[in-house]
């Protein structure tokens, strides 16, 4: 029975995720917790991209814009909190996670609305190129913004604070990210099956059909793109806190590519795929980079093998194993 296997896999996953920091400390590898935090954060980003790319068929090659901008919102708010100058001479900075993360999501949602409203008038290759172009514009904007570090980026000396929790502690921050990731996972699971989700899936399969049913495909694609951008912005805000640093590197087009690789590696349009893909890519990068400077050559090989052999990414691989074991 695949559903029993699914429950079993979920339970194992939950136990491993909760026990992970303690095991890492126990075996004297506290860096594993930091690595797992990266996996969770990239998982949020990849799962958000998957909402647009996998469910909606909107191949965005510009999601680094949201990852980077989310980080910059945190960085800029922190910068002004430290200096005391108001942001744009208007409102005060902050070091509170409960303010900075929603602010990052809001700003990314607005950016996604603007990018989506224009780029969704096209489709296919044009859509890919326009989303890429917008992300590049943002990249060069932040490179030239000397007030916020330009090329060098912004250092966030201390992680944003949460009342009652010591976010400076890596284990605590890991659990904050785990809780947020769990909420994202549940919400995305609901979205996929909801009325909105079935309409979005319909739009991916045949826009003509959906219009002939009385839907306006554009507006559903736009909302999916906005939600996707907000989710990626959330990941960006957490990533800036995690690394205590944000730079134009997170806005670079290769970062958009990385997010796409995570989705494809894990399984396009699946619920768990992007999370698996993100974890695999972060782990591979850590392992292979320690081994060779040209680690991306090996990454390419792994990607080829997984995509060609499973035809559905890691998610499909797990499903096949599940079917065999039952």
């Amino acid at each position, binding site marked *: 029975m695949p559903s029993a296997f699914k429950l079993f896999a979920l339970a194992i996953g939950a136990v491993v995720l909760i026990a992970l920091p303690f095991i890492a400390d126990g075996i004297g590898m506290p860096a594993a917790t930091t690595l797992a935090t990266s996996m969770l954060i990239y998982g949020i980003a990849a799962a958000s991209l998957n909402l647009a790319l996998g469910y909606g068929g909107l191949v965005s090659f510009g999601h680094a814009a949201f990852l980077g901008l989310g980080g910059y919102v945190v960085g800029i708010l922190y910068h002004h909190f430290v200096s005391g100058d108001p942001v744009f001479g208007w409102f005060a900075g902050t070091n509170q996670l409960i303010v900075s993360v929603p602010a990052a999501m809001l700003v990314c949602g607005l950016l996604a609305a603007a990018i989506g409203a224009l780029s969704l008038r096209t489709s296919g290759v044009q859509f890919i190129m326009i989303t890429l172009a917008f992300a590049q514009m943002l990249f060069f904007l932040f490179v030239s913004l000397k007030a916020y570090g330009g090329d060098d980026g912004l250092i966030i000396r201390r992680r944003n604070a949460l009342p009652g929790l010591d976010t400076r502690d890596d284990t605590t921050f890991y659990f904050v990210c785990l809780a947020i990731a769990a909420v994202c996972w549940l919400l995305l699971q*609901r979205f996929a099956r*909801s*009325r909105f989700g*079935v309409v979005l899936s319909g739009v991916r399969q*045949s826009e*003509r*059909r959906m*219009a002939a*049913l*009385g839907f306006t495909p554009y507006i559903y694609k736009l909302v999916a793109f906005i939600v996707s951008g907000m989710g990626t912005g959330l990941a960006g805000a957490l990533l800036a806190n995690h690394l205590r640093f944000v730079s134009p590197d997170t806005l670079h087009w290769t970062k958009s590519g990385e997010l796409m690789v995570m989705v494809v590696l894990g399984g396009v349009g699946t619920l768990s795929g992007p999370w698996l893909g993100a974890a695999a890519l972060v782990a591979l990068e850590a392992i292979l980079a320690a081994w060779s400077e040209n680690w991306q050559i090996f990454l390419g090989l792994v990607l080829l093998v997984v995509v060609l052999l499973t035809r559905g990414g890691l998610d499909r691989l797990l499903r096949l194993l599940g079917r065999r074991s039952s």
Partner: protein
Amino acid sequence: MTALLQVRGLAKRFGGLVVTDDVDLDVHAGEIHALIGPNGAGKTTLINQLSGELAPDRGSVRLAGTVLDALSVGKRVRRGLARTFQITQLLADDTVLDNVALAVQARQGHSFRFLADARRDVGVREAAAGYVTQAGLGDRRDVPVADLSHGEQKQLEVAIALATEPKLLLLDEPMAGLGHSESRQMIDVLRTVKGRVAMLLVEHDMDAVFALADRISVLVYGRIIATGTAEQIRDNAEVRTAYLGEGDS
């Protein structure tokens, strides 16, 4: 009596080619109005202009008194103008019932509902099942569209269009590619809804046209050359030379 669908002075050209030439057309409530004509006469182009997928150069389309000209495809559907596609446009990954349920869902207003499971909405599923049965696909409702035969896909096109609860249904060659028994079944399905839903039927199968249509219009090179009952069309000299000519004598 004013007609349910009123088309006036509709014109469209692709470059130098006139595909719709000053078309006037009325479809009355409850009637099946067949639109016949040789290949390349501009029948599908006309359907696409009525449904809103293609903007005409000139002319006007009214449905039940409402001017549709500035309305998108989706808005026309919500006002009661549904269509089927000659080349089926179905959601191949989903089941028969899923496809029809989406049409029912579309009628219930916007779909910006993010949390509840759409496939567990009993009201929508039961309503959808009714249309599936009506179209003769009752025992195939949980089959993925990709596994349906061509004839079943054509039937599903009709079920989906009916599920939008249209006042007028534009049928673009519903019999195309069907075998004899499948055609009979399609004719039966259309007969059961005849009278409740007006239809503009584009069709090459003359047996089906004469079996179903109350009135027939003949489109040749984008222009309607005759409109009338089956007998009038059969006896019309212009139609005989232009279209029925050699083949039907």
